[in-house]
């Protein structure tokens, strides 16, 4: 049977056994800052990976837009060309 007093004794004893942490505290700041830098670099790479589908989609969209926006031979252009040819013929060019 463990009564309250026994439990309190156990807690009191456990409180006295605070572990020695000075060895771990040594150069802790240096280790922490190194980890922070690592995480920072890793997060840049992670974001680059995450954004790669977006950049790929932008590249595809630009390619499609570029292809669609390329001027084709319009009937007007053909008409002008034909007129030019006719004029040239009439003027004795051809």
């Amino acid at each position, binding site marked *: 049977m463990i009564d309250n007093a026994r439990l309190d004794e156990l*807690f009191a004893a456990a409180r*006295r056994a605070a572990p020695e942490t000075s060895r771990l505290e040594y150069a802790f700041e240096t280790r922490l800052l190194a980890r922070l830098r690592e995480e920072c670099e890793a997060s840049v790479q992670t974001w680059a990976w995450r954004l790669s589908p977006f950049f790929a989609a932008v590249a595809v969209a630009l390619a499609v837009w570029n292809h669609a926006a390329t001027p084709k031979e319009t009937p007007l252009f053909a008409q002008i060309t034909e007129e030019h040819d006719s004029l040239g013929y009439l003027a004795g060019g051809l």
Partner: protein
Amino acid sequence: MPDHATDEALVAATLGGDDGAFAELVGRHKKRVFGTASRFARDTHQLDDLAQEIFLRAFRHLGKFRGDAPFEHWLARLAVSACYDFLRRERRVREQSSLEAMAIEFHDPAPDAQRSATAAREVLGHAMRQLSADEQLILTLCELEERSIRETAQLTGWSEANVKVRAFRARERLRKILENTDDR
């Protein structure tokens, strides 16, 4: 950054990109953070990881520090939150540890006070790992760190009444676990 700079000034400098200021902050508060984390971690590797996790969280959330309470209090809340998450993770991957071996030490009246204190810590640690993360947290704060109900409520974000109820229930559960160990 001068040595006598306040914590708030160091926080501002860190937010401005000065890593040295953050190192200074860490240096000032690491002892207390290690003290808290050592109540939750089982070995030195876990302790180092947990302490790093607490300061990493502090670094990431430094922008949320408004300065209306001392930095130390803000960091203590963050430390408790990180320790709570650690306990929950630990519980998920917890190995099935046996209390039987520890029961022998529990009954062993060790002549050396330090040895018996270490044994008590180990027995308690093994028994507490059978508890839920909430129960472990509340007992660690109230019994091992001897924080008041009000302090514990502030650190955990639970109401004072809730802390009292949880602490009582956790003690009862711990007692039952230790009694079961005793019976074996």
